[in-house]
């Protein structure tokens, strides 16, 4: 996935002189996850450059660059560190088009590694997507494969609205099915790892049906797409697995069509449970598919605690927690 992201950035730097990359350690060094490796050497240091350690500053200057007419792609080193930039994201980037009646826009894409499963502890594992999906004016994207990461990132950069682009770092180098005690597989051979050369885009707001099925609908994004897929496979459940890919705008049609067909719905995310994005999904399914439901909507999520270090695999919503929810759904 790292190579796909690097490729998307390279292509957009090449295609559009307005695209500017900025962030901590992203220039000469190429980023702590190598997502921007080689891009400064290729495109020059006024297109790809390091910044002071100041998330508020990074987002704030990106808003100003957008007002000038550039298309900045700031990186926040970990999603856990995006909070000092929240005022600039929520009060400024998200509201700028609205408050100026379209005179000024913030066509920026904030890239940030997110999610757990890497022994990152409290401040290298969080999934703060619900903070952003709650903000009117922001789009939120979470890819789950190299193919989608490239196509979605290109769309995000081309989009004229501010996009929060969360990259699940657990799957940067290979899919992760939640079985933490087994060796990690690389992306090679995975169908989602077939990444076309050159430019292509995947529209924001369109979900991807990973697996068609009739027994239940699983709504997931990021790492949890792979975990949910493995659990359904191992349990032999004929689930329809939908990778939402974009949380805002949400592909409501895909959700409705699937739940109306299956009558059961499981929502899975790594983020904490209370007021998580799963609550929004469950409410939407309840409101819009109530008469098709044969069981209560289930949510499998992280617990309502900060992300722990030593108890990572007790916290992570893995196969056992998902499996129990599937059983409850099927028994109902």
């Amino acid at each position: 996935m790292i190579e796909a992201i690097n490729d998307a950035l390279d292509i957009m730097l090449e295609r559009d002189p307005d695209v500017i990359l900025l962030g901590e350690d992203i220039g000469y060094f190429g980023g702590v996850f190598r997502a921007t490796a080689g891009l400064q050497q290729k495109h020059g240091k006024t297109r790809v450059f390091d910044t002071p350690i100041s998330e508020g500053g990074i987002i704030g200057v990106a808003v100003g660059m957008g007002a000038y007419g550039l298309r900045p792609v700031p990186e926040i080193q970990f999603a856990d560190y995006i909070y000092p930039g929240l005022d600039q994201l929520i009060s400024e980037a998200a509201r700028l088009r609205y408050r100026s009646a379209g005179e000024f826009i913030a066509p920026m894409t904030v890239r940030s590694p997110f999610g757990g499963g890497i022994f990152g502890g409290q401040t290298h594992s969080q999934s703060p997507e619900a903070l952003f999906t709650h903000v009117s004016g922001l789009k939120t994207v979470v890819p789950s494969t190299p193919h989608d990461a490239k196509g979605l990132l290109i769309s995000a950069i081309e989009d004229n609205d501010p996009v929060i682009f969360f990259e699940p770092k657990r799957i940067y180098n290979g899919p992760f099915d939640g079985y933490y005690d087994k060796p990690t597989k690389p992306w090679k051979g995975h169908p989602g790892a077939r990444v076309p050369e050159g430019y292509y885009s995947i529209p924001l707001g369109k979900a991807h049906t990973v697996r068609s099925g009739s027994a239940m609908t699983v709504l997931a994004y990021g790492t949890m797409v792979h975990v949910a897929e493995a659990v359904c496979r191992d349990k032999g459940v004929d689930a329809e697995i939908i990778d939402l890919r974009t949380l805002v705008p949400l592909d409501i049609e895909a959700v409705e069509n699937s739940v109306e067909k299956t009558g059961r719905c499981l929502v899975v995310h790594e983020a904490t449970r209370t007021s998580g994005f799963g609550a929004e999904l469950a409410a939407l399914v309840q409101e819009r598919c109530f008469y098709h439901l044969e069981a209560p909507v289930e949510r499998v999520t992280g617990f309502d605690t900060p992300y722990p270090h030593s108890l990572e695999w007790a916290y992570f919503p893995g196969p056992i927690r998902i499996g129990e929810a599937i059983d409850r759904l099927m028994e109902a």
Partner: protein
Amino acid sequence: MTKGEDRKNRPGLSLHVPEPKFRPGDKVDFTHLAIPEAGDQPRPDESCAASETFPLCTDLVRVLDDEGKACGPWDPRLSPDRVRAILRDMALVRAFDERMYRGQRQGKTSFYMKSTGEEATSVAAAHALASDDMVFPSYRQQGVLIARGYPLIEMVNQIYSNRGDKLKGRQLPIMYSSRDHSFFSISGNLATQLPQAVGWAMASAIRHDSRIAATWIGEGSTAEGDFHSALTFATVYNAPVVFNIVNNQWAISSFSGFAGAERTTFAARAIGYGVAGLRVDGNDPLAVYAAQRWAADRARSNAGPTLIEFFTYRAEGHSTSDDPSAYRSAQEREEWPLGDPIMRLKNHLIALGEWTEEQHAEMDRELAERVKAATKEAEENGILGHGLHHPFHTMFEDVFEKLPWNLEEQSEQAIRERNIKWPE
């Protein structure tokens, strides 16, 4: 390692909580303020090292003396026509503020903020910038819009949130935006415009453009984290930006001591960042012009950013929602040692033989009429709460470039409600 018992003979620590010198009812005496003579301050070359400006950060750049004579190396030597234009724009800002304040009291709008006493810090500064230099204002720089010729009726439309409002009634009054006048959309969130101005300036530099950015902030808001990040980014990338701090002594009810003014000047902060700093008599329009011009020329020649502290006084309440008699002495305004910017420039022009009391009175009459006419014209588009506003569906537009499904649904809901609440 010191243990607890070893500390028992030490004096207890005490917390210092700043307190302004004068509260309501107090007799005001500003003699503690060091006000240097006009013309005494040296003017370094615009390309000097930032550190060379340090003496000017604790001094006060002044041009107009008590007799209205322009003196010293900071005299910008403006033509009488230009000085008259600055005077006229400042007087127009004051006339506009007076009328809009009354409009709020009459219930034509919900809110207003005057800039009385601070007109020079926006008007004279705007005259020193190119018209396409990008301005990132706070909420008290209406003088920049007026100096740039923004139509008064558009300002009133915005204040009344009526159907003529270009911002479609979405923004609180005075949160103007005009891309055509290189005037960035005003936000209610303090200090956010500073890093944005730096980013705009960086973008201009990336593009080898020749435009610069200028931004304004009150002294109270310099306590925000965005002030620090903006100064840091500006110095790191040598961004072509001018930071203007309007030190009007008050942040609503908090005196400047709560932003750190008891220990140092606001201009002095520039030096720690490696940014050039100037401390300027904010009620001296010629000094304001000269300092802004110096900083703009410095930025334009790639010599780097400048931080200017305009030392001035907020002569009126913070806003129409504020009553300053609850926290400060009413005498402060009359005792303020730097006087009134409009009177000072008027006296200067009269001393030059380029202006008369009669001309001034005639100008004031004419400007009041002009503001009144704009107000009347704007009222035809409606006043707040009187039904002449933008159509309901516009509330949902511009959240995103295109309306997503949920906003489409909510828009239909709002229109349904409208037909029930206010049947045609």
